[in-house]
């Protein structure tokens, strides 16, 4: 009595079918999916047409190298002169024009006596000078030259949050000095920053040169010069590339003057694809402007 004998064998047929299916799938994959060089590269049909005049293909002037160096030097020189001259010249020129139109003093006699005469009255002038401040700074500086005491009331209303303007004199002088010192410091900081950036941009320009030279070297190896070209013509091309250096689009920006030479350079650039990549990845640009002197 062997209980195993009458037991049905499970899944005989289905296992057979599944095994066959696995092998069929593998065979189909091998026959259809893997074809090592079984087809020669398809011939490319090329229509030969007279080349269009080179200068017609003028590329839009959007090269990366130009905008990169420009923005850095420009914005920095500008901010420096601006903040410094502005605060200083303003108070000084003001007193000069003012002495001439002295008649305006008569118009506002009420406010001048107030700061001069009584100290207790100062709570009153405070609200007043604040409102007319933009206009009245002019009349106030006027008295400064004739009377040495008045230069101070002028600055007073400006920082004027403090109730005692006279005590502020020394403080304001100190403040002015401090501000000058601060301005000096800021200027020095800016100068050193500018220096750094100049050095950086110089290093960058060097690396950029090396990068462009590498590309030029590669292209020069691939160039086949047409006969009958003389002199040292230069062509400028704008190259759009993929991040791996594959050349996507080529535009002629400046022709050498010889269409045959332009096309020889263009073929050489296409043959050099992928172009060498810069060692510093930050220098990589999707659009490059390259100058070539094939006869150099």
């Amino acid at each position, binding site marked *: 009595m062997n209980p195993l004998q009458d*037991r049905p064998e*499970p899944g005989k047929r289905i296992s057979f079918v599944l095994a066959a299916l696995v092998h069929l799938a593998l065979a189909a994959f091998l026959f259809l999916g893997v074809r090592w060089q*079984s087809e020669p590269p398809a011939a490319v049909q090329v229509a030969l047409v007279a080349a269009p005049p080179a200068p017609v293909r003028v590329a839009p002037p959007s090269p990366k190298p130009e905008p990169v160096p420009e923005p850095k030097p420009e914005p920095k020189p500008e901010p420096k002169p601006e903040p410094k001259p502005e605060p200083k010249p303003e108070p000084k020129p003001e007193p000069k024009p003012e002495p001439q139109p002295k008649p305006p003093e008569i118009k506002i006699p009420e406010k001048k006596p107030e700061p001069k005469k009584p100290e207790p009255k100062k709570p009153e002038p405070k609200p007043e000078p604040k409102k007319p401040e933009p206009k009245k700074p002019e009349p106030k500086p006027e008295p400064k030259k004739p009377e040495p005491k008045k230069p101070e009331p002028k600055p007073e209303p400006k920082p004027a949050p403090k109730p005692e303007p006279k005590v502020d004199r020394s403080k304001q002088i100190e403040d002015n000095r401090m501000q000058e010192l601060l301005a000096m410091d800021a200027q020095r900081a800016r100068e050193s920053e500018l220096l750094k950036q100049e050095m950086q941009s110089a290093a960058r320009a060097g690396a950029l040169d090396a990068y462009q030279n590498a590309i030029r070297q590669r292209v020069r190896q691939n160039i086949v010069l047409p006969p009958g070209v003389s002199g040292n013509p230069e062509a400028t091309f704008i190259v759009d590339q993929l991040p791996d250096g594959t050349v996507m689009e080529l535009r002629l920006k400046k022709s050498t003057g010889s269409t045959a030479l332009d096309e020889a350079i263009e073929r050489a650039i296409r043959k050099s694809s992928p172009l060498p990549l810069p060692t510093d990845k930050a220098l990589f640009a999707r659009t490059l402007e390259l100058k070539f002197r094939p006869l150099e």
Partner: protein
Amino acid sequence: MPITQDLSILSLIAEASLLVKLVMALLAGLSFMSWYWIFRKWFSIGSARRKSMDFERSFWSGGDLNALYQSAGNDRHNTGPMERIFESGYREFSKLHAKKADHATVVDGARRAMRATYQREVDELEAHLAFLASVGSVSPYVGLFGTVWGIMNAFRGLSNVTSATLAHVAPGIAEALVATAIGLFAAIPAVVAYNRFAHDIDRLSIRLESFMEEFSNILQRQLR
């Protein structure tokens, strides 16, 4: 030796030498057999595990032992290994109990009967696993043999050519390497399946053994 540019799999196989073709055919057969047994073992081990789990659940849910024995005997085609162990043990137990044998003899007899069934079941589960193991270990060597033979032919053909280039040997080597590829294709699934099934059977047999011990305790308790 003709230099062919067409290196599709079909032409590689068709242009191989006779011995390499034989090796490829052998490997293809081995691969087919191993896949067949992979699927069969997969189904049988899976169903054995499922049925054992079902039976364990109904056994420990506190059903009457006699009722369980009846259902196991009635539906013999559809029982798992654990149920068959239970059936043989309980049959032996009731026979010996009816003969008024002493308690130690009854429990020992039942346990021996269960042990015998357990061994048969495990042997049944492990059948043909050795085939998978040997396909997994041998077929790479068989494929390598075909490859070496094919490469030997390719280089012998090269000796007749005055200007030897890589193009003269490359097709021959490619043909020869197909044999190794087929060998590896047969071996890898076989090894993976063998390891997997061996592990599954180990776990299942441990479950069966612990069930046997627990069931002998229950029988011993019933005698008192």
